[in-house]
């Protein structure tokens, strides 16, 4: 029952594209059989990038190479049409053909490449069972839940035997309950097939669970890239830190810690490659921040005044967003702290209230910043 595995191929993309109010200029590569996550906020060019690779969008300049095949070359005008690329796309919406049953949807790819009706049906059944949806074979798309439809769409994309799989925020339109199951399923299926894949997402969890490498995209350009765990655990830009759910303060490295532009020093654990006097960043998780109404004494060395800007309820904590306090450090603007709802009530925290943030030096990681 294991699907046939074709030898995996690598992907190289190096493109430029300009549209009114939008520009994309980036290069990235994916090793054969690896999964690359492209992380970035909405409007950073993620979906356009996938469109270029799938052949649905023509770049102004640059190349897309899949294995030994040149799919797009702006210089020579080469543009292999989407149906001859062997590039599958799973979008945010399942986009199952509304007039076909789930099984006929999955059989569409095999039928399109000339497989007979019976054989295509067998292939469809097999892929439906791969995604735990064999019971849905005879349903119409309108009779499927969002999670079910997306599973069928995944089966349909894989049944076409693409050499490269593109996933465009595949969980974004799903219920909170349906997303984890599909995420786990996708991880299993991608690894089992040894497939080369690119997943576009704004959720770091997708990247952590599914990808080997990550590229962080901001305003149409690569901001940061590297092995997923490394990039998300040790972000070097505020942008990546925010996406990874970490807080980041920029400055220069010094013997006592990170020296911020206003002269304050944040103490922390020195990471590899840190050079005194060179640009550096201090990174810490919001849950490591303690919040006080009065200036705390005791051991925390990193203490600074803020003003409460806002409170957002999260799963089991309340995330407090800080604004810079009058006379306090400007870099405190936008930093976050995670508190229990009880602590928020006890401290009487509400927007506009002054407070103190305290972060233990052991919770702060110091890394060299880009350009260092």
């Amino acid at each position, binding site marked *: 029952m294991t699907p046939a595995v074709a030898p995996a191929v690598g992907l190289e993309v190096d493109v430029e594209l300009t549209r009114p109010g939008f520009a994309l200029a980036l290069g990235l590569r994916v090793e054969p059989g690896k999964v690359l996550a492209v992380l970035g906020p909405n409007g950073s060019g993620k979906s356009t990038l996938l469109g270029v690779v*799938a*052949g*649905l969008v023509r770049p102004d300049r640059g190349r897309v190479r899949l294995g030994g095949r040149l799919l797009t070359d702006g210089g020579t005008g080469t543009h292999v*049409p*989407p*149906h*001859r*690329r*062997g*590039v*599958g*796309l799973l*979008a945010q*919406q399942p*986009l199952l*053909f*509304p*007039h076909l049953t789930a099984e006929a949807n999955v059989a*569409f*790819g095999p039928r*399109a*490449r000339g497989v007979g009706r019976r054989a295509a049906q067998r292939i469809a059944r097999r892929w439906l069972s791969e995604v735990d949806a064999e019971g849905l074979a005879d349903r119409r798309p309108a009779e499927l839940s969002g999670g079910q439809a997306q599973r069928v769409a995944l089966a*349909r*994309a894989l049944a*076409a035997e*693409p050499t490269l799989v*593109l996933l465009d925020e595949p969980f974004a339109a799903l219920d909170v309950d349906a997303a984890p199951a599909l995420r786990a399923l996708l991880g299993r299926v991608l690894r089992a097939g040894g497939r080369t894949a690119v997943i576009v997402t704004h959720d770091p969890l997708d990247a952590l669970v599914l990808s080997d490498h990550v590229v962080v995209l901001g305003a149409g350009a690569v901001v940061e890239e590297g092995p997923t765990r490394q990039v998300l655990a040790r972000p070097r830009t505020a942008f990546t830190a925010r996406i990874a759910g970490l807080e980041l303060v920029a400055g220069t490295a010094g013997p006592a810690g990170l020296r911020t532009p206003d002269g304050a020093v944040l103490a922390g654990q020195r990471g590899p490659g840190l050079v005194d006097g060179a640009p550096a960043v201090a990174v810490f998780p919001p849950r490591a921040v303690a919040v006080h109404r009065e200036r705390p004494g005791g051991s925390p060395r990193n203490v600074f005044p803020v003003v409460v800007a806002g409170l957002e309820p999260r799963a089991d904590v309340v995330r407090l967003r800080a604004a810079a306090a009058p006379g306090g450090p400007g870099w405190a603007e936008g930093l976050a702290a995670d508190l229990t709802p009880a602590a928020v009530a006890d401290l009487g925290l509400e927007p506009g209230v002054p407070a103190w943030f305290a972060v233990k030096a052991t919770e702060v990681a110091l890394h060299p910043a880009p350009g260092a």
Partner: protein
Amino acid sequence: MASAASSTPDPSPTGGVSGRGGADRHRARTALPAVLWLPAALGFALVILPVLGLVLRADWVRLPELVTSDAALTALGLSLRTAAASTLLSLLLGGPLAVVLARGRPPGLRVLRSLVLLPLVLPPVVGGLALLYLLGRAGLVGQYLDLLFGVRIPFTTTAVVLAQTFVAMPFLVVSLEGALRTAGERYEAVAATLGARPWTVFWRVTVPLLLPGLGSGVVLAFARALGEFGATIAFAGSLAGRTRTLPLEIYLQRESDVDGAVALSLLLVAVAAAVVVLARPRAVEGAR
């Protein structure tokens, strides 16, 4: 006020709204300015009262005899045949035209689309004259048809079909193009990434997506072809059995036998009403 209140749908939120498409319909509506009701009622009256007048004027006793006269049956048969033929022709030519306009990105798309809609706003008799000067014996194309093949189109049943197609095809193009634009290109893009060639995408994805718009477009085109008068009389004349369709027969009988004309008019009203009822409400949305 009472009538206004009773015709307003229950604004209370319904509990179990299922299906994304229907959700909007259940929203509470904002109140309409009361002043709109008067012109709206007058507009409705303008549409419906003349038909009512026709019904009242009809000689119901002689009606069966009038609508089954030889001339009437001949004209009706010709009308149905030519309208069916021109609907088919509209489909064969207008279907691909709609797909190209909606998907093909031809150069000068805006101009092309406006030109395709020209017959909708052009007086039909002008369209008929234009056809005559294109395909007539001295026309731009017609003289060569006559010279090379001995084919003469004007004042034949073929001319009737061409005239009807000229005025009816834009209805089909508009509703098909609307259906295509509503469906969007996303399904076709997905099909292409699944390895489907353009021809496969067209038959297995585009055409099925078109079907809802196709039904209403066909009905609208058929209805328009059935009622065609101006272009037909200018391009095909009024030859009994060959080019005299039901509207032409009505116009002719109006001079000699008013009762007959009224009876045949009712026949056309009945056919048109059936067509509109069958095509509602999609046809109206599709033609927008």
